């Protein structure tokens, strides 16, 4: 099909750059500068999609972001993008688009049967209809979602990539129409840094569509010249195709920039800007609203401004024979432009009873009849408009059918106050323009031009100039020469809009569908029904009928809906008010919001200094907070369970090496460091001798365990603290909080050293021998380096700190070296000497060793609800000093005999596995909710006992020692329990003989 509706001349398109594209599989041609909508219209394609609920035929309705009908799916497979507005899709070579919400095709949509049953499908019908039987609701929901929809999301990962950027400027101008361009020019002239964004590919807004001259050049050319002038200024950045979709606190505006396609694989498809500006000027324009009459949704019914835009900007005739229905002067401009572009204009229907004679003169010149006090009552046609029935505005049932295939409607204009309202400001109703206009600003923002209800070009230009200057002044710039800029001279027809409200045409039949929200298929009948049923608040009306929902968020429907509700409530429109404006202004791809933070990079991953060594050893990694740590080092053919058992056994029988670099490490220095630690920990630290370490427990203020770790005294006023990996930043914040807020008088300085030191634990009965060979200058025997002793020395020639600490119950040493030498230390320790093989072990083996010893884990046994006494650590609580959480421990509830306390569990039946997370029951069968007496906090398969063992928190704790309890494992079924015997929590070497070797 050729572009038979394209004029040979005119428009802002490049006829030298034809572009092939496909719509629903058919090949068409358009031009560079077209949108998909203009190219479809140029090719005579009227039927673009099907409506949301009734599957009625729909075509192009607007020429901008407000489009409610022409929603299409772009692309295929993983690149498919549903719900794109054809009016905003720039035509590109080989673009492929599809109608959506239709089956099997847009021309023959079987689901259009919904339209036949529309009388029984009013607003909220599914709330009433699908209530019984309740068990079928999931099926109902599935079917409803299938029948009513908005395209199909791709089910494969998005291969596009996205870029996020933060930017700051003195003045952000949103919208490059006449007001925005003047505002940006004015602000830039003061030296302020200015960012100007516009959602369209070309600047100018409505200047692209007008037939005016500014400063002697066509308005579109003037806009492009002004844009270029701004682009060339060093203090200005401009972004076309950039939609400001959200206005957030502290003057931050989120902007989505669409990047025109290229071949570079690194080119992002969209860029999300977060812009903070000292001052923001919103020049977002106004949105034309439709008229409400029967069957006002047929393909061929179009906003008058859009019909004019297609004629002037794209040189496209949106039909052959047009009728214009209006309640304001702009309809006459449409009639003129349509006639001048080659359409036959059958009539202008003006709901007003009197208009300016100049308008009538223009119509007379072109032979266009005008019917004052008349409007359109109804339309007929199939998949495209065939005729309209016209008649007087106050008499039901029109008197005359007029053949036409284009009906251009204008119900007036609504300022686009969305971004302004997102600041928290409340728009106020202006009776002069019958629309909501910006109220007092809640942020450093000013709304200007048509977005403020100023529809007159000269006024908009002047307002932009003043607003730009004012924004710069408020941003701190000196305006010495305020008169240096002036607005351009305007020539051409520039009419005031002079609208008179006309909210609803007489309904020709009782059940006639007069659509208010075209996207969501909401009719005047739905609004009346909602009102009858008590949904009289505008917010309730929205939820009940879906008025103003969907991808267009009611840009063309809200004000008409509010006006109808006001009439039903017999109140003025301001009393009805608006719904809440929330971001985004237009739909935003989730990929743009996520940026590069997807998949494995949804959060940053931290690696230890020995990561390369772990990779070389074939480690299997597991996350630990943000860290990734070896879970184990399986050998070929070995399962992870076998691997873990082998590694744990190696530590118990020989020597193992594990990476503990993730431990939190904090230097605590100062004259009051000892006193500070006394207050932070439950046990005493000021008495700790230099060169010795001590295990410590710190509580929250509510008495619950916060963390554990060790503290080593390095000198009189210097200590070295370690804390659990997952709590490292939390513990540092805890310490900083008490120093800054509670005890600022203490002379204590903190320095986080987690990243400074690599750390390993060398554990097992042969560990001393292995380490001693690499550390010849220091004696490591029990006399010189007893349990909890610390020395600074060298290991394999690397400056190191060795602390004799064990988390495995075996003879063990923690070795700290500068991070840059961590890999070197690891390699040196793993070298087999004297036939002693050092086995690397991972987190899972470490867990086996911990549970065998009954050591608590932070997050498992110390789960935020347990006290020191609950975990059998009450002897650590110093009675000689005060510490954080001490007072809370006096609460009766924390000393109740029935509290859950730490115990060990072994299977009562040999071979049973004790599942982690199982509920502990006193009886073999669950008696329902509340019968649990505890839960299994950690479990493993013991290498020394050869059986499953577990730690559990059980009511009464050791009082139940020897009792049989029952573990309810949901995986085995509700009535299947595993008998287990309550024991002491330490399963291995309770005297600690091996540790003290």
């Amino acid at each position, binding site marked *: 099909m050729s572009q038979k509706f394209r004029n040979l001349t005119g428009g802002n398109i490049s006829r030298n750059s034809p572009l092939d594209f496909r719509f629903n599989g058919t090949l068409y041609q358009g031009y560079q500068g077209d949108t998909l909508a203009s190219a479809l219209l140029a090719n005579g394609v009227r039927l673009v999609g099907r409506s949301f609920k009734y599957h009625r035929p729909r075509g192009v309705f607007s020429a901008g972001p407000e489009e409610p009908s022409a929603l299409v799916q772009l692309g295929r497979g993983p690149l498919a993008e549903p719900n794109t507005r054809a009016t905003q899709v720039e035509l590109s070579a080989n673009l492929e688009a599809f109608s959506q919400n239709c089956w099997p095709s847009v021309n023959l949509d079987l689901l259009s049967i919904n339209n036949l049953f529309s009388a029984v499908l009013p607003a909220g019908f599914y709330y009433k209809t699908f209530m019984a039987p309740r068990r079928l609701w999931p099926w109902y929901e599935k079917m409803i979602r299938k029948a009513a929809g908005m395209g199909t999301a791709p089910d494969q990962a998005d291969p596009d*990539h996205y*870029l*996020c*950027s*933060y*930017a*700051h*400027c003195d003045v952000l101008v949103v919208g490059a129409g006449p007001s925005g361009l003047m505002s940006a020019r004015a602000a830039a002239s003061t030296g302020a*840094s200015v960012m100007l964004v516009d959602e369209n590919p070309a600047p100018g807004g409505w200047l692209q569509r007008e037939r005016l001259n500014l400063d002697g050049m066509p308005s579109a050319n003037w806009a492009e010249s002004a844009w270029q002038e701004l682009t060339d200024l060093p203090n200005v950045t401009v972004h076309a195709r950039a939609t400001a979709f959200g206005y957030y606190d502290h003057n931050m505006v989120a902007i989505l920039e669409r*990047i*025109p396609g*290229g071949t*570079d*694989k*690194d*080119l*992002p498809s969209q*860029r999300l800007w*977060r812009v*903070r500006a000292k001052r923001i000027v919103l020049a977002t324009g106004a949105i034309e609203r439709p008229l409400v009459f029967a069957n006002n949704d047929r393909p061929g019914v179009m906003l008058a401004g859009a019909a004019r835009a297609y004629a002037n900007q794209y040189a496209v005739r949106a039909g052959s024979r047009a009728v214009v229905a209006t309640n304001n002067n702009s309809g006459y401009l449409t009639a003129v432009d349509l006639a001048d572009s080659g359409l036959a204009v059958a009539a202008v229907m003006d709901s007003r009873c009197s208009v300016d004679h100049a308008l009538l003169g223009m119509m007379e010149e072109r032979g266009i009849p005008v019917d004052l006090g008349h409007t359109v009552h109804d339309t007929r046609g199939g998949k495209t408009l065939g005729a309209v029935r016209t008649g007087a505005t106050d008499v039901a049932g029109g008197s005359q059918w007029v053949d036409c295939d284009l009906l251009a409607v204008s119900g007036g204009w609504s300022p686009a106050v969305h971004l302004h309202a997102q600041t928290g400001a409340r728009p106020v109703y202006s009776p002069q323009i019958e629309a909501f206009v910006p109220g007092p600003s809640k942020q450093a923002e000013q709304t200007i031009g048509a977005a403020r209800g100023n529809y007159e070009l000269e006024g908009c230009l002047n307002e932009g100039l003043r607003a730009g200057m004012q924004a710069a002044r408020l941003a701190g710039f000196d305006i010495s020469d305020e008169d240096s800029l002036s607005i351009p001279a305007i020539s051409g027809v520039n009419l005031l809009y002079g609208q008179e409200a006309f909210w609803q045409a007489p309904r020709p039949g009782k059940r006639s569908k007069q659509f208010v929200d075209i996207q969501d298929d909401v009719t005047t009948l739905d609004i009346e029904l909602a009102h009858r049923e008590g949904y009289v608040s505008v917010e309730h009306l929205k939820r009940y009928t879906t008025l103003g929902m969907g991808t267009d968020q009611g840009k063309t429907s809200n004000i008409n809906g509010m006006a109808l509700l006001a009439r039903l409530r017999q109140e003025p429109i301001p009393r009805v008010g608006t719904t809440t404006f929330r971001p985004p202004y237009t739909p935003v791809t989730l990929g743009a919001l996520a940026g*590069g*933070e997807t998949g494995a*990079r949804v*959060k*940053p*991953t*931290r*690696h*230890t*200094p*020995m*990561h*390369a060594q772990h990779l070389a050893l074939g480690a299997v990694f597991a996350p630990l907070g943000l*860290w990734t740590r070896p879970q184990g080092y399986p050998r070929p053919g070995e399962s992870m369970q076998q691997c873990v058992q082998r590694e744990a056994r190696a530590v118990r029988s020989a020597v193992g090496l594990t990476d503990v670099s993730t431990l939190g490490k904090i*230097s605590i*220095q*100062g*004259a009051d460091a000892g006193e500070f630690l006394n207050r932070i920990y439950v046990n005493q630290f000021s008495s700790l001798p230099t060169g010795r370490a001590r295990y410590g427990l710190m509580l929250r203020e509510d008495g619950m365990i916060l963390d554990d770790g060790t503290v080593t005294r390095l000198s009189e006023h*210097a200590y070295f603290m370690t804390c659990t990996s997952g709590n490292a930043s939390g513990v540092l914040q805890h310490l900083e909080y008490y*120093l800054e807020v509670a005890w*600022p008088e*203490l*002379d*204590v*300085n903190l*320095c986080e*050293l*987690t*990243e*400074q*030191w690599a750390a390993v634990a060398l554990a097992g009965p042969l560990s001393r021998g292995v380490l001693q060979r690499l550390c010849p200058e220091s004696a490591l025997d029990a006399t010189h380096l007893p349990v909890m002793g610390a020395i600074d020395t060298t290991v394999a020639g690397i400056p190191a700190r060795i602390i004799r600490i064990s988390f495995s119950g075996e003879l063990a040493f923690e070795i700290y070296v*500068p*991070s*840059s*030498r*961590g*890999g*070197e230390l690891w390699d040196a320790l793993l070298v087999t000497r004297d036939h002693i093989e050092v086995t690397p072990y991972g987190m899972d083996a470490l867990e086996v060793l911990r549970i065998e010893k009954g050591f608590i884990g932070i997050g498992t046994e110390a789960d935020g609800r347990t006290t020191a006494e609950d975990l059998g650590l009450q002897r650590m609580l110093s009675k000689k000093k005060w510490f954080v959480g001490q007072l809370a421990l006096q609460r009766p509830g924390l000393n109740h005999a029935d509290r859950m306390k730490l115990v060990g569990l072994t299977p009562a039946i040999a071979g049973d596995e004790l599942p982690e997370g199982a509920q502990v029951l006193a009886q073999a069968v669950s008696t329902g909710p509340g019968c649990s007496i505890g839960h299994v906090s950690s479990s493993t398969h013991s290498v020394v006992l050869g059986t499953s063992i577990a730690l559990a928190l059980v009511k009464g704790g050791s009082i139940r020692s020897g009792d049989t309890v029952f573990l309810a494992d949901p995986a085995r079924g509700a009535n299947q329990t595993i008998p287990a015997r309550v024991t002491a929590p330490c399963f291995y070497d309770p005297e600690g003989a091996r540790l003290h070797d």
Partner: protein
Amino acid sequence: MIDHSGSPGGTLFSAPGLTIDAAPVDHWLQAGSRAHPSQLKAFLATALGVEPNERVNTVTRVPGGPEILAVGPGRWLLRYPPGRTLDSPAPQSSVTDISDSMLGFRVSGDGARELLGTGCPLELGDWDDTRPGCAHSLFHHIPLLIHRLQNNTLDLLVPRSYLAEFQHALLHSARALAALQSNTENG
């Protein structure tokens, strides 16, 4: 591939207006005194021959010595060339060697700030372009120390454990910006 035991070497990325190199592995000290900041400042002035700035986010350059980054009230980072350090201990203060804590990249060229802006929300426009500066911030959730050496030369330093992630994020942004620039130039 990054060697996690040290800084990556060489130039990682180069495009018109933007170069990313490994930042030099320098010697870093953290000097802090909550209780006696003026004494620490006096000590540093005596030891280094130049009084360090107290204003946070400023940098004091010591001829032939370290750069002193004011990172908080009574808290400075001393950046020494390799092999050099503070000779004497500071009284009533803590001076801690954190040389192994940070690694990073030197980003230079007209596009340096825009690159930083792809992940860092900090407003850098207020920086005095004629002086060096510093700031703690984030880059895609990764803790970041920005040390501005000249107007368009930034050292971006991160905790060592984040280096691989930081490199990935930085290069991803750099490639995207270069592609955008090329796309714009090609119309």
